[in-house]
């Protein structure tokens, strides 16, 4: 596929909502020695995560992010033509969560809505889908809601996931307007579907007693079949092979180099991995904002969350004409976007209240 180019559409606004409850990674001394834990925290660059309460879903976090965005930007609910919800922790298997959000947000019935089941590539893919829809005659505004409650689908006895994954909900408003061109590269490789997986609970392996049985693996990690399994080495291997190349290729296509990039927001996988990419791409620290220290890896929500936490103040990262967004993860699925955030209103981060 040639790179996708969009004209006349862009991101008008971004907001994010995180649960108030903080889980400190230092609490994981039950899982590993203090020495090992300090080393892990240092390497992954994640000291804290946010955990949603048991009765709070990804859709709830996205709902409050959307309310914040609509208030800050005085958005009439009737002006929204489409709602896309991206999550691997939807409210239900059936129905999809997006109509529930359409209803809660008071959007019109003549509003298309659907869920997309994607992991860490979700925001980049979601933007491209939203841009494509917003480019059509008859569509002006798309609300893209991207959120996860990963805390609910990981094992606290698994060293490869417990220190990494947290919760967040985000809202992005895409609309037609006087925006510069943007470009997207979207990719997939299902040959490595097993490297990040929840094996049970779908149609292939329905929920059953065996699926809920906790098992110990060769590395001393314990999880059941409805909790995320991740092969860290395979994911790192994939990242090294795929991510810098995709970014470089998209840059080449647009006739730019890494020094032309104002800001590059990586999916907040872990610091060791993103440092490696930054080094490969010869990026300067001033080009790469990070939120993972305090919010961890929130899968598809991590890119918009980082935009909110690190770029809401126009004094930081003041030049935002050439912003690269990079998402990569389960599927395998990965994507790169190059767009402008110069016309984007970024809300202040909010904490979930439950109104």
């Amino acid at each position, binding site marked *: 596929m040639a790179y996708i180019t969009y004209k006349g559409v862009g991101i008008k606004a971004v907001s994010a909502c995180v649960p108030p409850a903080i889980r400190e990674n230092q609490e994981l001394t039950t899982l590993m020695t203090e020495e090992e834990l300090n080393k892990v925290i240092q390497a992954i660059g994640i000291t804290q995560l946010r955990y949603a309460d048991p009765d709070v879903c990804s859709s709830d976090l996205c709902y409050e992010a959307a309310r914040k965005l609509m208030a800050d930007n005085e958005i009439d609910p009737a002006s929204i033509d489409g709602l896309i919800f991206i999550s691997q922790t939807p409210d239900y298997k059936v129905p999809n969560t997006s109509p529930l959000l359409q209803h809660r947000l008071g959007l019109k019935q003549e509003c298309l809505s659907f869920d997309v089941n994607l992991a860490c590539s979700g925001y980049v893919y979601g933007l491209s889908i939203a841009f494509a829809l917003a480019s059509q005659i008859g569509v002006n505004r798309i609300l893209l809601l991207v959120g996860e409650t990963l805390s609910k689908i990981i094992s606290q006895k698994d060293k490869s996931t417990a220190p990494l994954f947290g919760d967040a909900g985000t809202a992005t408003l895409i609309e037609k307007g006087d925006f510069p061109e943007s470009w997207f590269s979207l990719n997939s490789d299902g040959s490595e579907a097993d490297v990040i997986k929840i094996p049970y609970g779908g149609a292939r392996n329905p929920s059953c007693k065996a699926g809920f049985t906790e098992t110990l693996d060769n590395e001393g990690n314990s999880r059941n079949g409805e909790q995320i399994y991740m092969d*860290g*080495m395979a994911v790192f291997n994939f990242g090294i092979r795929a991510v810098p190349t995709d970014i470089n290729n998209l840059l080449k296509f647009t006739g730019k180099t890494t020094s032309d990039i104002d800001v590059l927001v990586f999916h907040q996988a872990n610091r060791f991995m993103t440092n490696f990419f930054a080094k490969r791409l010869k990026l300067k620290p001033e080009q790469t904002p990070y939120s993972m220290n305090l919010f961890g890896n929130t899968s598809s929500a991590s890119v918009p969350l980082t935009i909110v936490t690190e770029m809401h103040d126009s004094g930081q990262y003041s030049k935002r004409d050439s912003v690269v967004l990079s998402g990569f993860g389960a599927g395998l699925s990965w994507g790169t976007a190059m767009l402008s955030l110069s016309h984007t209103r970024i809300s202040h981060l909010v904490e979930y209240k439950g109104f």
Partner: protein
Amino acid sequence: MNIQHFIENFAAQFDDTEPEAFKAETKFREIEEWSSLQALFIIAMSEEEYQVILKGEDIRNSVTIQDLFEIVNSRHTA
């Protein structure tokens, strides 16, 4: 590719283990400091120094530093 350099690069990924502990025949999993995190450091080192990207199974199927050296060496083009 020089095995001594490889052993030195391998040892450089560890903070708390004396360099003398690393020999060609060292079974790396028996090093106290070894962990799945260390495995990532080794994958990064191999890519940076030798432009060879090790897979998880390369590490899982290896026992000694020599085993890893041989995999990297076989894929390394000078």
